[in-house]
């Protein structure tokens, strides 16, 4: 059964009725329910369309965090052949919050690196809810160095609430690890394409998303701090998270308007979690196109394009946003 978000309650009720109705009909085949089913289905679809057409920034935050949203592992399963995970930072440990490896994307060898949140209690714990420690970022740096050495493109999939705020994580220099990962992104002379597939949380996201092309899924978010964190600092109450989400301009649509990202990947009606396969394939097509754009560029041009792109951010913001 589909987990529903709070604001989807009316949709949940309709869809619940539909399931109930169909179950009754199968128990007692004498009842003709076709007309009622059609009526409810139309109504549910209409409500879904209406709701998702005007999601607030806070609602988008919830959709971006939806437990059934396709995660890193789903993208790799659907898009990458021969995926070969490569573990460890060669200094301290293996961080399962960031997965990385070699694989074949639409025929070409690539490195894929990204956050994995997990999708049930066991995997969530294993992947630490997608909140990486220094080792995750140092592994990313190591894999990007390999990509550079073998001249393979890098695809990063960003989905994190942020780096893990833990004691050991701080002791081992998580800030330094993030800084080095961002720096590594900026030194690459191979194409780096980044997708924000769920939550783009703060420095922990930037560390993988300093890319030649940055795309966001329609209902994903990307922000300097979580709305809850922002609200508790500026409004002195985490209950103002809805206001903070709106004020920070953190939706894909906001970021496209601010020219921070290159394009938005549309999601199926009702969010990516309703049709994971189709949204992942759509994302694949976008990555394929983006990689193609760099085929004729020299290594130096590829690096320069990335740096100039980031230097230009903000300078191009229209007055008043």
């Amino acid at each position, binding site marked *: 059964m589909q987990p529903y978000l709070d604001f989807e309650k009316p949709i949940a009720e309709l869809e619940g009725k539909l399931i109930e109705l169909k179950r009754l009909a199968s128990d007692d085949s004498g009842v003709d329910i076709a007309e009622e089913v059609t009526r409810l289905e139309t109504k549910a679809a209409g409500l879904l369309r209406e709701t998702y057409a005007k999601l607030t920034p806070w609602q988008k935050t919830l959709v971006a965090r939806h437990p059934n949203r396709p995660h890193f592992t789903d993208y790799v399963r659907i898009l990458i052949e021969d995926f070969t995970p490569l573990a460890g930072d060669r200094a301290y440990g293996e961080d399962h919050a960031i997965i990385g490896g070699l694989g074949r994307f639409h025929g070409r060898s690539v490195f894929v690196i990204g956050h994995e949140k997990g999708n049930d209690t066991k995997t969530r714990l294993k992947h630490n809810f997608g909140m990486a420690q220094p080792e995750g970022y140092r592994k990313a740096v190591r894999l990007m160095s390999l990509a550079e050495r073998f001249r393979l493109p890098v695809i990063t999939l960003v989905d994190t609430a942020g*780096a893990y705020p*833990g*004691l050991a994580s701080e002791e081992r220099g998580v*800030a330094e690890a993030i800084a080095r990962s961002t720096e590594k992104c900026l030194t690459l002379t191979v194409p780096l394409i980044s997708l924000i597939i769920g939550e783009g949380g*703060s*420095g922990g996201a930037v560390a993988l998303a300093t890319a030649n092309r940055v795309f966001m899924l329609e209902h994903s978010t*990307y922000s300097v701090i979580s709305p809850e*964190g922002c609200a508790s*600092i500026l409004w002195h109450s985490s209950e103002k998270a809805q206001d903070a989400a709106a004020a920070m301009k953190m939706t894909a649509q906001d970021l496209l308007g601010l020219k*921070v990202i290159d394009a938005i990947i549309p999601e199926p009606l009702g969010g990516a979690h309703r049709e994971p396969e189709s949204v992942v394939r759509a994302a694949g097509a976008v990555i394929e196109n983006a990689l193609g754009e760099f085929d004729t560029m020299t290594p130096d041009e590829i690096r320069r394009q990335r740096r100039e792109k980031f230097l230009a951010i903000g300078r191009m913001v229209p007055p008043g946003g």
Partner: protein
Amino acid sequence: MSDKPTKGTSEGAINWITNFVRPKIKGFFNARETPENLWRKCANCGEMIFHRDLLAAQNVCPSCDHHMRIGPKERFAALFDDTYEELHAPEAPADPLKFRDERRYTERLKDARTKTGAVDAMQAAKGRIDGEDAVVVVQNFAFMGGSLGMGAGEAFVSAARLAVAQHLPLVMITASGGARMQEGILSLMQMPRTTVAVEELREAGLPYIVVLTDPTSGGVTASYAMLGDIQLAEPGAMIAFSGPRVIENTIREKLPEGFQRAEYLLAHGMIDAVVHRHKLKETLGRMIRLLMKPLPIDPAKTNGSGGIVPVKDAALMPVPPEEE
């Protein structure tokens, strides 16, 4: 100037500092100032210090050595030999998100400008440190918690570019609660933007020296503040990514003594040295000389070879005589 009580200065930043710092350290200037403003109380040891003595001591408490927070003006005065040239604050879009929390961002910005007399939280200048030319960038914690926004990011980029253009080292003195939330994603984007500037310094072969001062946290720590060729810190400086309270909430246990202080980072291999403020100028000067002038400086000591030691004098082992 920036020696005012720090209460309220952190409003702009992702700043956990005000929320967690123990009362003992909080404030750094519990400015129980006399009407004449002549005495300052050290927030660490409680000692009353005469303002001229404090100034002479570069705002280091004469009795307990506590390093108080200082702003760009005091820092430039302490580091540069004599005169220095302040760089103009570069243009940056104002309030691109039309941000408003309990107050308008534009009002907070105006207040900070009135209070500090600065345009934003980062100020750069060019001058001589112990005889060595350098560009120095100082973050001003008194300006909205030293928060990193578009103005500060642009100031960093233009200072680094001046250093590259004039072939000078860049010294970065950090002090920041982190990103400026009121500029949202555009604040976050200063992390890669400033990193591009660091890369330009690296490619020009120029030293980038970071001095971490109290406090440095959040997105600042996770970008240019941790990318120095050499990483120094002032004694007792609080240096963090996530603040202690956030961490305590996550791990649900008490943090060790001295956690996230300069000395703790040194012990954990995260920085090169902890340097007393009174030694900072000579330390920076020496490092810049070592990196920028690698050949022997005094020709008298070089056998007149222009700094190149002849190979015959450098032989390590005597060559055994050849036997018939």
